[in-house]
């Protein structure tokens, strides 16, 4: 089943996915450690609740978390879609290039230094992501341009090297920080401030929009770099831009939510199976689909073992690996 990417179809698809996303988000809003009647949640959402507790639970605990899941889900899925096209490799995902390991090292180093710096761990995580991005970019260049296999290998090696350093730093952290870090490494959406959300929203939206401008070029690039160059695509410019935008999205997502695996790998595959290889439909679908899947996963993480919580990364990994294997077997048949 491949939907022809006419503007009308794309708009219809996006409208449908948006409706699903809103419904899923509303559903997620009604679930949590405390059972609240729907009327109470609705009133709390608009600040009209009679109970201040309900208002706090809805507006300051559940809603920011759902918004964060939407932003992070969209960012990771779009980054994965872009990278799989850029590297022409279906195994590429935001973490394969070492960006998340760089972010993790940034966050953990802040905890290790401690004091005031520990509180700025999202910032140092982002710095770690940026530095790793530049480093892998420099390693992945050959004769002045990005070479996809060199880039992929540079990323994989950098990721494993940084993971080794993370283990080293972990042994030196105090027990309390190790526990916090373990949650972070497993992906955790529970810690978010409104300030972070306000900062994240415009950047994620702009970066996704900027990536979308290269949708046609990515389609052509799938034919091969040389062919794309013959067809008038500025390959160096497109590859650099897509790589940096995907890295920016990943770095932002990881710095606020830790390492949430499988999303960036799986969502592009699901999208391609449903829609084919046209990035004009694939990119926006990945954004909305990733948001829907992460909101669902986080709702499971919040409710499966209530009143305790699971790290959402554990949910996406446990659910993601079997789905991926299923897709693989189906494609092989």
């Amino acid at each position, binding site marked *: 089943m491949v939907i022809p990417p006419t503007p009308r179809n794309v708009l219809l698809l996006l409208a449908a996915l948006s409706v699903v996303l809103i419904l899923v988000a509303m559903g997620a809003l009604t679930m949590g*450690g405390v059972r609240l009647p729907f009327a109470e949640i609705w009133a709390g959402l608009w600040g009209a609740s009679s109970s201040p507790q309900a208002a706090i639970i809805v507006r300051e605990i559940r809603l920011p978390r759902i918004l964060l899941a939407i932003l992070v889900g969209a960012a990771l899925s779009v980054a994965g879609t872009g990278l799989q096209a850029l590297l022409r490799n279906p195994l590429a995902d935001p973490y394969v290039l070492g960006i998340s390991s760089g972010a993790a090292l940034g966050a953990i180093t802040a905890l290790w230094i401690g004091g005031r710096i520990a509180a700025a761990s999202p910032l140092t995580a982002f710095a770690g992501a940026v530095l790793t991005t530049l480093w892998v970019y420099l390693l992945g260049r050959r004769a002045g341009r990005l070479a996809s296999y060199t880039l992929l290998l540079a990323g994989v090696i950098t990721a494993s090297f940084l993971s080794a350093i993370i283990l080293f730093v972990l042994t030196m952290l105090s027990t309390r920080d190790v526990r916090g870090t373990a949650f972070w490494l497993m992906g955790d959406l529970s810690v978010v401030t409104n300030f972070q959300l306000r900062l994240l929203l415009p950047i994620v939206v702009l970066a996704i929009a900027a990536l979308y401008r290269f949708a046609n070029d990515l389609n052509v690039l799938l034919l091969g770099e040389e062919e794309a160059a013959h067809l008038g695509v500025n390959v160096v410019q497109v590859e650099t831009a897509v790589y940096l935008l995907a890295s920016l999205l990943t770095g932002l997502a990881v710095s606020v939510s830790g390492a949430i695996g499988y999303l960036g790998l799986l969502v592009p595959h699901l999208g391609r199976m449903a829609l084919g290889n046209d990035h004009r439909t694939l990119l926006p679908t990945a954004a909305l689909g990733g948001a829907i899947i992460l909101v669902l996963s986080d709702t499971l993480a919040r409710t499966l073992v209530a009143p305790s919580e699971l790290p959402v990364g554990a949910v996406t990994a446990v659910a993601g690996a079997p789905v991926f294997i299923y897709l693989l077997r189906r494609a092989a048949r």
Partner: protein
Amino acid sequence: VGGISSALEESRRSFCFASMRLNGPCKLRTGRAPSPIGLKFFLCFAAALSLGLAKAPGRVVIDETGRRVNIPDNARRVVSLAPSITETIYALGLEDRLVGDTDYCDYPPEAKQKPHVGAVINPNLERIVALKPDLVVGSAEANRRETVDQLDHLGIPLYGLKAQDLDTALKSIDDLGMVLGGEPAARAVLERLRARIKTVEGRVQGQPKPKVLFVVWYRPLITAGPQTFIADVIRHAGGISMGDDLKGEWPHLSVEEVLHRNPEVILFPKSESFSPSLQEFQRLPGWKEFKAVKNQKMYFISDAIMRPSPRLVDALEEVASILHPRPGSRPQ
């Protein structure tokens, strides 16, 4: 935020009542309606009063972790985020103020009946908010930094306790009494505990000090560092904790290093989820060469030693009776 806004709500409501009651007789006595200016004055006064009411019953204190906390003068709805805190609240007889504790709060058994807010490491924020606490008490050893930040963000006051040795564990009991307005109970509890500590110290004084290995975990071998109340309990019980010259709270030890140091007594904390037989430890590589294993001086002790609550003194007495058995009595 919840506490303040509900207090505001209440003060507003009482203001309405008050103004009705005041205005009624006013009219009767003077025979005319209150002037607009008088009404304005009254409204201003009431507004100031309601603001004052919302903020007044509280004070700013520095908790044991060095944070500034605005705590209510008379905390009525307290949530405990660690088993040791729950135990202390019960020991102070303030359990009717405890509206919630964690899944792991199992002592005294009644604590299991309190509404739970989830695990110690990741309590459920929604549950905490729904319990409408006017104070949450947490522990620097047990809880995550993120939990503290989140409660700060929600405007729920959290008083943090921090125990690094027996003295600070006692101080935590004192501080909890102070924060909850249970000073006399805390004084009484502390007096009894200090007397018991003194008895133990008197009994073990001058005795030879055995080298003690406290096993937090055995693969890899993790022991208690010098800055822990566990090591301090061993010191007070007349032993030498083998982690005392190591760095960190929970240092790893290689079996070679333990062989070199040759512990005379090995202690394991009991737990429900982990109960191997002592013989199993002897089968671990290298262990049968330890002096403690050769002399069969390996003991499971109560997990009270892991909790900086009044029961830490129970643990002290237990460890002392193992290290320095009374003549005629034998530890099991």
